[in-house]
């Protein structure tokens, strides 16, 4: 046995431990998103990096300018605007025109957050408000996908990124053909499955070698980052768990009914923006319910609506709309799922 030099340090109580503050939580969310951003830049190259920087800068600047104009101290030090900007960029396709990304950032902060009274009062997830606005305004640009791992992606951006404001985005078809990639259909795995019945292997979806939005491709990285946040107590694990469980169960139910038409539940779980949305957006601390049971209801609602929109809707992906709807319902869920006050009787009339 070697001599160990462990020292036991004794301190007298009370042991004061600093509580988690908003800037600490938000900074950790940013750290948790960095691996996803790094993977996005690795897969899509310079365009992804520029889009991430543009959206984040637009959000932070907007927050700062509005605070200055209204005479308040600037809140950008709490990182919440940066979180919104990064999240917004992660939901956009890699070749998305930068000016549209900047516009989305401004809309996220102004319409999604500041007008509601700032952080803590935003009843909808600001990044998703911006994303829904962009989806409604630029339906073509936001569904134009480019393949990952193109040669020379770090030195040359996707041409549509550099579209001048208010002009039609430059077509990426020629660009993709020139880069020598065969048979790129311009569809995400989800769209390929739902509209053309072309399955994608689960391993590709898990490790993220498919086309898609910046941050949605690799389920593995998102899961690791989510586990980090949940382990540090900065995100409630119940919400993503409820979403995963509900979409898996609903998907599994329909898959067992008719495996020829309905996709595998694992596919539903790993494809599209479900992972990213469940881990980073649905768990928004402000726009989600506060009671544990309410969180389960909220998550199940998101999972079920996502499945419905994916399978029966006009759009391939529905997680964004599902989260916005669940955000809208969360005050009601909170009211209906209030935990029993300690000592009170169940169903007492005084409630």
């Amino acid at each position: 046995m070697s001599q160990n030099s462990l020292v036991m340090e004794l301190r007298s109580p009370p042991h004061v431990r600093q509580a988690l503050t908003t800037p600490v939580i938000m900074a950790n969310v940013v750290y948790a998103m960095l691996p996803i951003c790094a993977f996005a830049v690795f897969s899509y190259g310079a365009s992804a990096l520029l889009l991430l920087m543009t959206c984040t800068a637009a959000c932070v600047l907007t927050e700062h300018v509005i605070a200055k104009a209204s005479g308040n101290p600037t809140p950008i030090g709490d990182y919440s605007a940066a979180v919104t900007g990064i999240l917004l960029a992660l939901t956009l396709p890699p070749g998305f025109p930068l000016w549209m990304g900047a516009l989305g950032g401004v809309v996220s902060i102004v319409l999604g957050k500041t007008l509601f009274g700032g952080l803590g009062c935003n009843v909808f997830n600001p990044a998703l408000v911006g994303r829904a606005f962009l989806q409604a305004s630029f339906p073509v640009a936001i569904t134009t996908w480019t393949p990952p791992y193109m040669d020379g992606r770090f030195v040359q951006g996707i041409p549509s990124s550099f579209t001048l404001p208010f002009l039609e985005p430059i077509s990426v078809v020629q660009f993709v053909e020139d880069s020598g990639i065969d048979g790129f259909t311009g569809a995400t795995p989800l769209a390929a499955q739902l509209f053309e019945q072309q399955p994608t292997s689960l391993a590709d979806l898990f490790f993220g070698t498919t086309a898609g939005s910046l941050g949605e491709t690799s389920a593995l990285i998102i899961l690791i980052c989510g586990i980090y946040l949940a382990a540090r107590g900065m995100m409630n694990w119940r919400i993503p768990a409820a979403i995963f469980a509900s979409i898996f169960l609903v998907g599994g139910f329909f898959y067992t009914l008719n495996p020829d038409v309905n996709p595998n539940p694992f596919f539903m779980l790993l494809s599209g923006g479900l992972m990213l949305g469940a881990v980073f957006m649905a768990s928004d601390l402000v726009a989600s319910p506060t009671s544990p049971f309410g969180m389960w209801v909220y998550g199940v609602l998101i999972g079920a609506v996502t499945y419905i929109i994916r399978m029966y809707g006009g759009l391939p992906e529905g997680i964004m709309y599902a989260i916005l709807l669940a955000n809208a319902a969360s005050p009601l869920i909170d009211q209906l799922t209030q935990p029993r006050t300690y000592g009170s009787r169940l169903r007492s009339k005084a409630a």
Partner: protein
Amino acid sequence: MNPDPLGFIFLDAAIINNFVLAAFLGICPFLGVSAKLKTAVPMGFAVIFVMTVAAVCTYAVNQLLVYLDVPYLRIIAYIAVIASTVQLVEMVIKRFSETLFRALGIFLPLITTNCAIMGMALFATAREYGFMQTVVYGLGAGVGFMLALVLMAGLREQLELSDVPSIARGAALTLLIAGILSMAFMGFAGLGS
């Protein structure tokens, strides 16, 4: 006759083409009565009730108008018939159930002449729905209206204590929420088609 199944008609009226958030009908009561859940819920029930009654009686009136070959009288006939039927039903409720009358209260006459009710009747006629289809359509439209109203009321109650900047207070914030809700409902566009 329209071949749509009843379940689809219900979902179409309630969610996919929600009267308030996708067709933008009945905005006035939606903005006016959504400040508190306490008033939003009875209002929602009143709308469901009036929608269903209106669906039944406009279907009958339309049959009569078609039989007499005077379809151009449709709008004026619908207005008169919906308003008078609801008033009549209100009197009957007052006579037989004071509790129900109090719960629906002022809301019944308030929405009788609303454009959402009229729109529902005209849409049902234009789509050539049969009797059961029209009733289910009216019911779905009412449920959709109540859904939008209750979601809105929950959000507005939540925002009551927040520090909303002065430019966005009151009606502006309500319209902002309505816009975002409407964007969220866009996800259902094209559902089932």
